[in-house]
């Protein structure tokens, strides 16, 4: 069979496509890559459609053995990559031959790396998507993170192609430990006093030890709403939930679809991608923007992505 044998699954490696949409009415969440930009670049480097299945490698430690010839690209968190013990560069494609051993070290800046393969991993879809959501036992190979000895099938290359592509240094994202989260106020914002809002937008928050694909719990200035709970309602990606302890939680791809805590607004997806590269102790600030600004930023970022040309190696 064509593909990769998982020699070492690493700390937490998940099969993801862009996510599972249109299924909230039966309680299924989105899944999908936490850092959509790095994920999309990995697929673009491989000349794939952006929704192709790739790997989200959290922290690192993954080791794969190829059983056929192909090309791969690894993007995202800064991590050492070795192919047959030779150090290789991120943000470019690499030719792989049958028997090659691909090994990732542990992330040095950022926490999530993405590995795409030409044509994408061939994973059956559940509810329109291959995205793995462990909490729901949905997607991936069996609804779980990769385990040792899993096999990741791919399609054989139809023709051998010597060209490799790279993303110029100036366009490669870098991952800092201090991120600004641009936020649109919304939901129950009127239940937060102007003092509470000012405190929220002027304080520095720290990523606590409770951060995962469901959400990032932050610690810092306590913000209180004038209500305790609300009737459970739909929660969108990036929503900032403020529980009774006043410590914000930014909800991400694997969040529960409904919940009853007050929310002050939502972080834009361009910035949740950066948040999702942070780990415990890293710092964030919230910055209020309008929904018009958010729409403009999305258009600009999409133009920048599609307008940036890959280069030949």
């Amino acid at each position, binding site marked *: 069979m064509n593909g990769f044998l998982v020699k070492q699954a690493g700390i937490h490696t998940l099969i993801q496509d862009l996510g599972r*949409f*249109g*299924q*909230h*009415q*039966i*309680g*299924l969440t989105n899944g999908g890559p936490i850092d959509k930009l790095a994920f999309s670049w990995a697929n673009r480097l491989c000349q794939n459609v952006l929704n192709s299945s790739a790997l989200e490698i959290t922290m690192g430690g993954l080791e794969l053995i190829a059983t056929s010839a192909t090309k791969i690209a690894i993007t995202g968190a800064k991590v050492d990559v070795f192919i047959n013990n030779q150090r290789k560069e991120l943000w470019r494609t690499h030719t792989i031959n049958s028997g090659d051993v691909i090994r990732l070290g542990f992330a040095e800046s950022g926490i999530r790396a993405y590995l795409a393969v030409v044509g994408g991993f061939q994973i059956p879809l*559940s*509810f329109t998507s291959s995205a793995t959501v462990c*909490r*729901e*036992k*949905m997607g991936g190979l069996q609804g779980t993170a990769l385990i040792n000895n899993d096999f990741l099938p791919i399609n054989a290359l139809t023709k051998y192609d010597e060209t490799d592509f790279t993303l110029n240094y100036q366009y490669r994202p870098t991952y800092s430990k201090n991120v600004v989260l641009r936020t*649109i*106020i*919304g*939901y129950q914002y009127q239940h937060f006093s102007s003092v509470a809002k000012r405190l929220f937008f002027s304080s520095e928050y720290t990523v606590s030890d409770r951060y995962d694909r469901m959400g990032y719990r932050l610690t810092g200035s306590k913000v209180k709403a004038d209500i305790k709970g609300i*009737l*459970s*309602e*739909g*929660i*969108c*990606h*990036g*929503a900032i939930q403020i529980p009774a302890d006043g410590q914000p939680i930014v909800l991400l791809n694997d969040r*529960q*679809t*409904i*919940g009853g805590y007050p*929310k002050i*607004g*939502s972080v*834009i*997806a361009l910035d949740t991608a950066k948040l999702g590269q942070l780990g415990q102790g890293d710092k964030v600030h919230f910055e209020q923007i309008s*929904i*018009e600004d*958010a*729409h403009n930023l*999305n*258009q600009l970022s*999409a133009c920048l992505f599609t307008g940036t040309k890959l280069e030949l190696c």
Partner: protein
Amino acid sequence: MKIEIAGENALILYFGDKASPEIAAKIYQAEKLIREHCADVLIDLIPSYASILVIFDLFLCDYYQLKNKLHSCLVKLQAGSIVDGRLVELPAYYGIESAPDLAALAYRAQLSIEEVIRIHQAQEYRVYAIGFAPGFAYLGEVDTRIAAPRLATPRVKVPRGAIAIADRQTAIYPSVSPGGWNLIGLCPTPMFTTECEPNMPVSVGDRVKFCAINKTEFLALGGNL
């Protein structure tokens, strides 16, 4: 109805501030209208107790356009009559071996176990929301006499099909999971399946009625003890 921003590509429509059959019927109707009239820009919809979250594709329409679209399609809602969902009957086995909290709930309510079972079955419940886990439908509201607070210590493992009560809500656990609700019976009907369509026997806006079955019937319907 009030429309608020939820996020960069999400608006939330509020139809009131408490759950009621009238609001649920309105939401049921509004969901259908939105699916019909905004299909081209819609990514997802989450109807709940008194709100609908509308997630849209911000590359196909902006917030103002969607707000206008919603206003114009929901005009029909105010004018229209109250539409109801389907009535779905679900079998319930209230056998004591399948209902670890039934006796305690009855004792607390100063009712006999038989009375608790009779009251739980007597009513039609509305599916107010689906969430928490795939296929988990929040049904309401139970008679105040059998309302019960969540367990102080949630169970690590609630069996698939467990019929449960928390405050004035009742639900059926669609799969094995942790949970803090009071378990009063078992339902043999799968609440969530990936194998066939529809994946759930109920949708938001439907009504549910429980019908007591005995152990033989429970096992014949595919139930496991």
